[in-house]
């Protein structure tokens, strides 16, 4: 067990820039940055619409470096992770990736992330929030070493229908055969380049991981290879649109980490988010298992549903009612979007028990701001399948060029 190394004098620079900043700063036309895990990251480069359509129609590049990365190695690494997270790590093969969540003793979500298996006893865990203390305390009694490596690994997410073609043009031979959630190992000059077929857009896409010193070389080669394939650097806002269409949940938007909640009952469980497919109750004990077994028997307090809403106005922050008169609130919208690809008004909505299973129709109040005047509308809404958008190319192997 080791504490975080490489502490910088953060007071000199409250927000860091990623190793790609040297290139990306010249592309940011809007000068809009948002803080993300201690880094300053572009919210929008030039236009959200163009960036969004790069994800869905060509290729988009998103700087993933601030994603918090932990390296977990040691003879007990698999046992350790199996006790920490909800999925069964013993089923995760070497060079495979798994999306997962982890909980506290009450079965309340702490965070979500991805586990990368590099070897029998070697893993990376990528998370939204820093939580070294939780991981170290979880290591009591396990022979395992945990180290935060966020600032040692630069990462780009390349997403979109031409992403495979871009990588082929960059010289990554055989990349089209990489399966969804599989890792491939290449070289970029002197440095190892790891490519995983993963992403947060629900589209065909890859994430590229390289030691920090190779960051600019990676950026330049990627942009050169993608030049004729519609490649475009994208900011946080465009990614946010794509992730809602993909139906993925986001910490602090769709749920709050149990480590941060102050008020009672604001915590969320994996079952409430509809993530039961991530919860391997049969694998043996893991953090929160006993509480989750109980929840499964008792039924959940609420549930996140994908819903579709009449009209075109996104239902940001709307409350949900059981009738048009809005007399009884039964839930609220967490994430909302007019989906440009689906041409549907979609949202992720947290609905209270028992209404998430009994009601087939809801009513949503939408506030519309038009020329400085607020209007309230009641719109009909109904549950739909999640993900809202799931193109075949996401999973197809070999991956299509276009």
């Amino acid at each position, binding site marked *: 067990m080791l504490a975080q190394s490489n502490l910088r004098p953060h007071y000199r620079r409250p927000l860091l820039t990623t190793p790609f900043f040297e290139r990306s700063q010249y592309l940011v036309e809007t000068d809009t940055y948002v803080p993300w895990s201690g880094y300053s990251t572009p919210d929008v480069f030039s236009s959200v619409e163009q960036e969004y359509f790069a994800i869905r129609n060509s290729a988009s590049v998103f700087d993933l470096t601030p994603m918090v990365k932990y390296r977990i190695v040691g003879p007990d690494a698999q*046992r350790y992770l*199996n*006790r*920490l997270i909800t999925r069964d790590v013993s089923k995760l093969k070497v060079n495979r990736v798994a999306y997962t969540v982890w909980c*506290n*003793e009450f079965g309340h979500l702490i965070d979500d992330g991805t586990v990368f298996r590099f070897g029998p006893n070697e893993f990376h865990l990528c998370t939204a929030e820093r939580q070294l203390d*939780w991981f170290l*305390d*979880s290591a*009591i*009694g*396990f022979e395992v070493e945990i180290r935060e490596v966020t600032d040692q690994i630069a990462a780009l997410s390349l997403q979109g229908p031409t992403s495979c073609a871009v990588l082929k043009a960059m010289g990554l031979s055989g990349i089209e055969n990489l399966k969804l959630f599989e890792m491939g190992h290449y070289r970029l000059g002197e440095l190892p380049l790891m490519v995983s077929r993963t992403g947060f857009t629900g589209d065909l896409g890859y994430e590229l991981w390289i030691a920090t010193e190779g960051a600019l070389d990676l950026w330049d080669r990627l942009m050169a290879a993608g030049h004729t394939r519609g490649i475009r650097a994208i900011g946080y806002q465009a990614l946010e649109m794509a992730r809602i269409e993909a139906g993925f949940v986001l910490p602090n938007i769709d749920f709050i980490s149990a480590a941060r909640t102050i008020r009672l009952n604001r915590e969320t469980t994996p079952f409430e988010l509809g993530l039961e497919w991530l919860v391997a109750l049969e694998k*043996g*004990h893991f*953090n*929160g*298992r*006993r509480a989750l077994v109980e929840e499964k028997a008792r039924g959940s307090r609420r549930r996140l549903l994908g819903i579709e809403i009449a009209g075109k106005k996104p239902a940001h922050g709307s409350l949900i009612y059981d009738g048009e008169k809005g007399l009884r609130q039964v839930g609220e919208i967490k994430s909302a979007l007019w989906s440009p690809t689906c041409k549907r008004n979609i949202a992720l909505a947290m609905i209270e028990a028992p209404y998430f299973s009994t009601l087939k129709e809801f009513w949503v109040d939408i506030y519309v701001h038009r020329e400085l005047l607020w209007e309230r509308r009641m719109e009909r809404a109904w549950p739909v399948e999640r993900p809202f958008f799931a193109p075949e190319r996401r999973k197809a192997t070999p991956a299509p060029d276009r």
Partner: protein
Amino acid sequence: MSKGYTHIIIGAGHNGLVCAIYLAKSGRKVLVLEASGEVGGAAVTREFAPGFKVSAAAHLLNAMPAELLRELELERHGLQFSALGMPTYALNESGAPIVFAAGAVEGVDAEDAAAFAAFQGQISRLARVVGHVLDMVPFRLSFRTWRERLDGLKLAWKIRALGARDMRELLRIAAMNAYDLLTENFRSSLLKGALGLDATLGAEHSARAPGTVLTLLYRWASQARAGAYGAAQPAGGMGAVTQAMARAAREAGVEIRTGARVKRILVEGDHARGVLLESGETIPAQSIISNADPKTTFLALLGPEYLDTDFVRRIDHFRSKGLVAKVHLALDAAPRFNGVDAAGLAGRLLVSPSLEYLELAFNPSKYREVPANPVLEITVPSIKDPSLAPAGKHVMSINVMFVPYELGADAAGARSQLLSNVLATLERYAPGLRDRITASEVLTPRDLEREFGMAGGHWHHGALAFDQFFVTRPVPGAAGYSTPMPGLYLCGAGSHPGGGVMGIAGRNAARKIIQEGN
């Protein structure tokens, strides 16, 4: 090998044996597994020099409820006492000691004697509430069952029944420190020093630390529960208590195996289902009850992989480092203490002449050092029990307070320094004692840990403090003897109400298991 045991108890200390007896009497088939070669845990008598025997850890029976002794019929099973209702002498280096006997104090001025009578009256009334708490199976604060609600109401009524004045006093002093409380009430340094020792023996800090009034109440409450026995000395040492318990247990149908060290608690389908011994043998059972301390039970025997991080974190933080060492001396003649008569020599002798002395003795422990002038609780058990030493010779058993678990880089040096400081202190109160010593033994908390398998070497298995008491002892999630692991229970001193050779934890654990129908 299996003979169809329903319950396995890990550890044949007094709580394990008490738990076994109650479970066996309720018709359960109980096996007690003891790692060492004899039963008794830390309540054993041992020969530390040829012919010289002494209680290895606790040396007085002063906290076991009288009704427990009766229920277990320990006297029928051979337990005899060489001394009952032993007086306490607070030693005075340069004059007469003060004597606590039969609920009164002698040797102080009239004002202090009156103050003591009033103090004793009030503390005893408050201690009755604490005594009620000691007997309880801790409830969950969620009060999910009717039994828990009833227990909660009973406790509330007990507190209410104190009346407004005592309730106010309880609220006022409960979280206070003993130094302030004693200074408020008394003038005699010797008197305050002696009561300060009672407040801090086995605690984490000296008398100026908040919470030491709780430990004083705890001590008075448990002594009150001992009733007429008072501070008692079992004939043959503390081992006689556990020997009698072992006989009672066998008579009740309990099987006891010594030399059977448990390596792991076995889990199947999220339920404790048996144990694996060091020898490789596995023994199945429907419930496993651990008399080992919480850290050993959860981290070593069960393993963190069966527990949630939050819980393991709490267990890891459970404060369990002992602060009391034991020194045993073999003497070729009876010792003589300044101003102490024959009755006193057979009693309990304290070296804690003032609260300042107590505080100064505590200070070095913060820096991993041994006290220059240690606080001592001394008995000479062979005065009343000649079986413990060769004819005409004697053994002295000393609790040395404020000896830290961590002893710096030179632990061996610290240990011999400790012995020499203890002997130098004794020499001031019993001149010439040094020349009568023919053998000695020092058991630091680390030795007690190794000797008796108690993580931290704490005789309560973990500090007694507000945050480690009653519904939060040892930690939330394992209070009330059941644990997060279905089928695994605790019955040792790490559980409510804690240690001392009291036996209530063992009895309450059995009660809980029987209540739950397991």
